[in-house]
């Protein structure tokens, strides 16, 4: 019997109108990787926040024991000194500082006069990096690192504080597959060094690879804890959603009709990077079609959809024709008027006004429809809001709930609702299922089917190859800003896509 480093008993946490954790019991064995699975809003992040002192001890009921001592965290600092570190999905690094500066931010070693001992900062960071086999330079600027590497910096930062329990809340949501592999290796290393990890992810393949045990949450309650060897993926899914799911990618293709958007020889200049980020891109998408875009991180997929939507880059050459209209020098509002709509990959930054309510966000891009003589018709607006709120099954008390308080997946649904409300004929979905659970993913896929059946077209950007293969009709793979290959999904394999993704550059 291994020693329990952390035990939670009868934990209950309420928000106004929501029972986020319902009598949860849960424990961690020393040195294990313990996965938490569950649908959006099941309460996983809330548990993490209770364990890490974000929610102080008097805001929930129940007990938390760390190494047989009753924990009463009032602040994040209390949890840190008990050896609990957290990696959140959103990175909290200062981009203009170096790796070492970030790692030691707030903990800078000083001499008696208060002068920071910089050589020590850099030397210690270096040795920490070496200890965990991390390939990072302490002197590089965080802004110059990829998302995956930034994630590593976060981990090193957490480890610095003598962390023995590391809580990772969807650490891989923004990573590409190769970066995920690196992260999983690091977690294995940590494990060998005696660190116990809690691992939250909606990607069950990762969970099956890395976890020793898995606990499934549903509606705030912990349903079951199992050893990973004793449970199949399908069973985890069943526990999560409470029913069997037969098909993970239920694409129903409809017969493509007239061309909606055609792009010829598009070259786009990126003023920030001062180079051409897209070169010679040509493709057509027809009504009723799902066109997938694959490629590695930085291949230019997001840049492409953002440019087509009028939100990024300067066009050097090429032509974009949408429903017969030539789109040039357009702003997002022109794109929306031409029937396009974008769901961005970064919902917090580009998608939502977090401090406002669901209704405010959903109708923001469609207000023109609800204006009469310059005044808003709240009646019609609320009706439309409620309708989408219901049909997307957003989990919240009502459309007047503040978006910032929703779980990640439900926030994503609000962004989707905003897009759908503009009644677009061409939707760009940039990583639409990032951070959302199996059930919600199915709902998004179902939505894609419905859109194409109504004669609309979808451009789907995704880093998850099974999703790309399963949900697109055709796939274009970008490689370093150029087209690396074009495939009919039904005949393509993951290996072919990967090869195409590395064909240039």
């Amino acid at each position, binding site marked *: 019997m291994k020693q329990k480093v952390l035990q939670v008993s009868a934990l209950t946490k309420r928000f106004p109108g929501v029972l986020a954790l319902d009598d949860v019991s849960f424990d961690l064995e020393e040195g294990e990787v313990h996965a938490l699975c569950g649908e959006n809003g099941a309460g996983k992040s809330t548990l993490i926040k209770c364990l890490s002192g974000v929610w102080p001890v008097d805001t929930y009921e129940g007990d938390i024991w760390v190494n047989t001592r009753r924990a009463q965290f009032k602040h994040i600092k209390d949890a840190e000194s008990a050896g609990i570190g957290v990696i959140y999905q959103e990175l909290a690094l200062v981009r203009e500082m170096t790796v070492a500066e970030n790692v030691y931010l707030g903990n800078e070693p000083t001499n008696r006069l208060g002068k920071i001992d910089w050589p020590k900062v850099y030397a210690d960071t270096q040795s920490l990096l070496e200890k965990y086999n991390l390939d990072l330079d302490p002197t590089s600027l965080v802004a110059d690192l990829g998302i995956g590497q930034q994630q590593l910096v976060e981990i090193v930062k957490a480890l610095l504080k003598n962390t023995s329990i590391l809580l990772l809340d969807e650490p891989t949501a923004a990573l590409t597959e190769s970066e995920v592999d690196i992260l999983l290796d690091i977690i294995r290393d940590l494990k060998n060094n005696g660190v116990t990890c809690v691992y939250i992810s909606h990607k069950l393949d990762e969970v099956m690879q890395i976890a020793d045990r898995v606990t499934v949450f549903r509606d705030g309650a912990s349903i079951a804890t199992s050893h990973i060897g004793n449970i199949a993926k399908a069973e985890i899914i069943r526990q999560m959603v409470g029913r069997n799911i037969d098909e993970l990618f239920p694409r129903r293709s409809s017969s493509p009709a007239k061309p909606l958007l055609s792009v010829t020889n598009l070259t786009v200049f990126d003023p920030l990077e001062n180079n051409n980020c897209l070169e010679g891109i040509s493709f057509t998408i027809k009504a009723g079609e799902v066109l997938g875009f694959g490629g590695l991180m930085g291949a230019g997929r997001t840049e492409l959809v953002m440019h087509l939507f009028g939100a990024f880059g300067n066009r050097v050459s090429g032509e974009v024709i949408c429903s017969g209209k030539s789109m040039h020098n357009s702003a997002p509002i022109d794109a929306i008027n031409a029937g396009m709509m974008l769901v961005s990959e970064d919902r917090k930054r580009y998608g939502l*006004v977090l401090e406002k309510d669901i209704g*405010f966000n959903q109708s*923001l891009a469609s207000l023109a429809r609800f204006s009469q003589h310059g005044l808003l018709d709240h009646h019609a607006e609320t009706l439309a809001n409620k309708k989408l709120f219901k049909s997307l099954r957003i989990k919240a008390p009502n459309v*007047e709930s503040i978006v910032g308080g929703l779980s990640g997946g439900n926030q994503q649904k609000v962004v989707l609702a905003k897009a759908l409300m503009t009644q677009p004929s061409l939707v760009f979905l940039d990583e639409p299922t990032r951070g959302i659970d199996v059930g919600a993913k199915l709902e998004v896929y179902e939505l894609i089917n419905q859109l194409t059946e109504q004669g609309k077209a979808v451009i789907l950007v995704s880093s998850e190859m099974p999703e790309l293969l399963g949900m697109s009709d055709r796939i274009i793979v970008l490689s370093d800003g150029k087209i690396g290959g074009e495939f009919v999904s039904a005949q393509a394999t993951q290996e072919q896509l990967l090869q195409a993704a590395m064909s240039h550059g």
Partner: protein
Amino acid sequence: MNQTKLLRTYSMGIALVLIWLFFTVATDNFLSARNLSILSIEMAVTATLALGMLLVLLPGQIDLSVGSGVGLIGGIAAVLIFNHHWNAFAAMGAGLAVALVIWGLMGTLIIQYRVPAFIITLGGLLVFKGLFWKVIDSETVPVVAGAGDNALSLLTTHYLTPAQGFLLLAVIAFFVIRASVRQRSQRAKYGFELESSSTAILKIFVALQALLLIILVMNQFRGIPLSVVVLGIVAFSVYIITMHTRFGRYLYAVGGNKEAAILSGVPVKKVIIGAYVMLGGIVALTGFMQTAYSGASTTTIGNLMELDAIAACVIGGTSLAGGRGNVLGVLIGALIMATLLNGMTLMAVAPETKFIARGTVLALAVWLDVYLSQKAD
């Protein structure tokens, strides 16, 4: 926890009551009809400007130049009337036009050419002050040529007759009740939370009683001041703009998350320039009122008014980062600022102490708001 939230919502209202109690005890005539009438005019000027400020604070901008602007625009009107014998309406029209153009230009510089609002309007503060002094030649320019009144001077010297006051109340009561009934039936239809009908009736009743009380008190002196009616119209318009128009929604969206707003097709540039143009119009109106209140345009008119306006907004719960704030809060904030000044004047407090007291109250108010909001979470 719920109590903290309630406390936070009503904290500034409570603070206002405490301040009023203090001055009632500390002075003999704070609650006299005459003083309250004066206070209402002073508040009308501060609040009008603060409501304009709200329009640019909501999308996350700021304007430090409004005080100088008040002086300049009032000065232009006074000079046109006194030195050039213009009709007061024409003079005000000219002032208004100048303000709209200037503020439109500043808005354009800020959003089109990306010079931070703080810098542009700090420049404006200096430039307009210089222009102002040039326009009035650093002298005192009366707002009426010869004896009598004109449309400009009447802004702060005209009062409604008692009968007109009561009529106004009746009209307001009718519309408030109608709007409330409509809103309740809609919310009920959507299954939203509804306060019990007795609370709703009580609220309206209390509000109308308060209004009646104000009218009764004002009628004891000279009647409702015209400037208060002007404030009422401005407040109602800003309320409609912020809560019931697309433009208003966009103000909040731009302040809450500018990038998300752009990707939602919000015409951010138009929204920001529009907010500044509206502010320009309000600056002109405040300029006329403030100059009329002094009876003449002099070099000190508008001094530090930008800070009173910002303070009123912030005390009223407006976020300087944008995205949060409303008309009622700003009105309460303006009343607090105006009361402080008025009460301390009655107490014959030295000017230096006045500054210190006002600054302290501002800092305290914001600290209290932050403190309560942290506790409420």
